[in-house]
């Protein structure tokens, strides 16, 4: 098999492969930077919980209107934002921490979502909602993912300084600017938006993979925030490309193949990145002058 047949031909020959790649490119550009900030704010598990929280809303949309992108998106957004808000209120108003209240809400959401889908749908529909259908992205889904990526990049550019300040020293931001709640809640909205976007391609369970894994991998390559953001986007897109090609040539499920390829990127980064385990071990016996 020539390199052309291996890498280029699948995308030249099949429109569904081009659409899948376009969707993954948009997700890499939008969802991955959000993942970097989730990681840096030590909120990786929050991202996971929020991904589950989307399910009952999307399921309700499905129950009422079938596999309609609009209804499932609006439902998912509403459920995600409601859980983020409720978990915040419970965490601030009671003894329970934010992690525990999020866990409580997402478990309820996951069970409720699966129950709702099972009321009307088949096993296939459930798999579609949980793991996505990246090879069946239609125009509306691609436009939605691209629009979310655009809004995300624009918002992150606007909120970059307050978000960074909020990560390092939230008290400082509160004392110098009224933007602290804007940064906090605006960021949560971006998280939900991107999980809803990712859900179209990768389903509620796997969407968080393209958000968090590239960000975690990028930490092993760069020391400053710009470098981490760039590395995360490159890892996400390269992983998506490899995953789609594995799925095409080996005939395996595309969503899990993409997340596994990005996961392989994470393991590689963990071992061989400049901040990775092997590099640090190799350099450990050589100390610097100062």
């Amino acid at each position, binding site marked *: 098999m020539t390199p052309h047949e291996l890498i280029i031909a699948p995308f030249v020959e099949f429109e569904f492969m081009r659409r899948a790649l376009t969707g993954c490119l948009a997700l890499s550009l939008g969802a991955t930077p959000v993942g970097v900030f989730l990681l840096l704010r030590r909120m990786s598990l929050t991202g996971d919980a929020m991904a589950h929280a989307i399910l009952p809303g999307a399921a309700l949309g499905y129950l009422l209107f079938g596999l309609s992108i609009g209804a499932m998106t609006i439902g998912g957004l509403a459920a995600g934002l409601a859980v983020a808000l409720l978990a915040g209120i419970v965490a601030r108003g009671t003894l329970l921490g934010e992690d525990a209240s999020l866990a409580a809400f997402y478990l309820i959401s996951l069970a409720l979502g699966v129950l709702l889908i099972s009321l009307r749908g088949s096993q296939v529909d459930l798999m579609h909602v949980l793991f996505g259908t990246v090879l069946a992205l239609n125009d509306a889904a691609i436009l939605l993912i691209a629009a979310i990526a655009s809004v995300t990049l624009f918002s992150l550019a606007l909120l970059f300084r307050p978000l960074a*300040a909020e990560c390092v020293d939230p008290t400082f931001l509160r004392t110098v600017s009224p933007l602290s709640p804007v940064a906090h809640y605006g960021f949560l909205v971006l998280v939900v938006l991107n999980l809803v976007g990712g859900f179209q391609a990768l389903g509620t369970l796997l969407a968080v993979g393209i958000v968090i894994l590239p960000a975690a991998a990028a930490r092993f390559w760069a020391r400053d925030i710009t470098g981490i953001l760039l590395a995360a986007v490159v890892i996400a897109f390269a992983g998506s490309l490899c995953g789609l090609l594995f799925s095409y040539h080996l005939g395996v499920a595309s969503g899990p193949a993409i997340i596994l390829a990005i996961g392989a990127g994470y393991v590689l980064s963990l071992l061989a990145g400049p901040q990775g385990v092997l590099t640090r071990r190799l350099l450990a016996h050589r100390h610097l002058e100062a």
Partner: protein
Amino acid sequence: MIRFENLTLGYERHPAVHHLDADVEPGDLLAVVGPNGAGKSTLLKGIMGLLRPLEGRILLDGLPRRRIAYLPQQAEIDRGFPMRVEELVALGLWHRIGALRGLGREERRAIGDALAAVGLTGFERRSIASLSGGQFQRALFARVLLQDAPLILLDEPLTAIDQRTAADLLALVRRWHGEARTVIAVLHDLELVRAHFPSTLLLARELVAVGPTAEVLRAEHLFRARQMAEPPDEHAALCRRGVA
């Protein structure tokens, strides 16, 4: 002038600062001292508006809170974030650059000057995670310097740092005092307070004494402060003080 009027601050209805009445004159260099749990850090949070009074009020003489520089204890800052020293220090220019404006030549010079003033020239591009405790405190002082604030609040600014760093940072505090800024610092080292701070507020949840340092830090006041400091009582009755 800052005025505390019958001020009670606390957590979950338990007072950490109880019925405090005191004035701080403009341009004063005031040390806030007292045992652990005496409400010193709580008082600074109250001034910043980070904690709403349970009773009474704090009058700031028209000074907007955003023009107060506040240096919290280091434990409240996440140094794991990949940020360079110059980026951390630049946050002190927030009142000029806000969330969106880039750094111009003048701002970059101000950052360079602030880093030079705290002895961190050459550290501009170092990550904040790589700094020692003392160096990081110097960087935070540079940020306060850039805030150019008329009122500066420092919460245990000289804790866990070496003598040379403490001396350098203390010189900066005295420079702010010389520039007629009001500085309020929470401190534990009473010898240092006696040597450098003209005024002191001795707190043990309730006010023990406030005024010239030599008068406040008398043995009987310090003894009383130690007697008064006790942990919050889960079964405490409602405070009736001031209720007709």
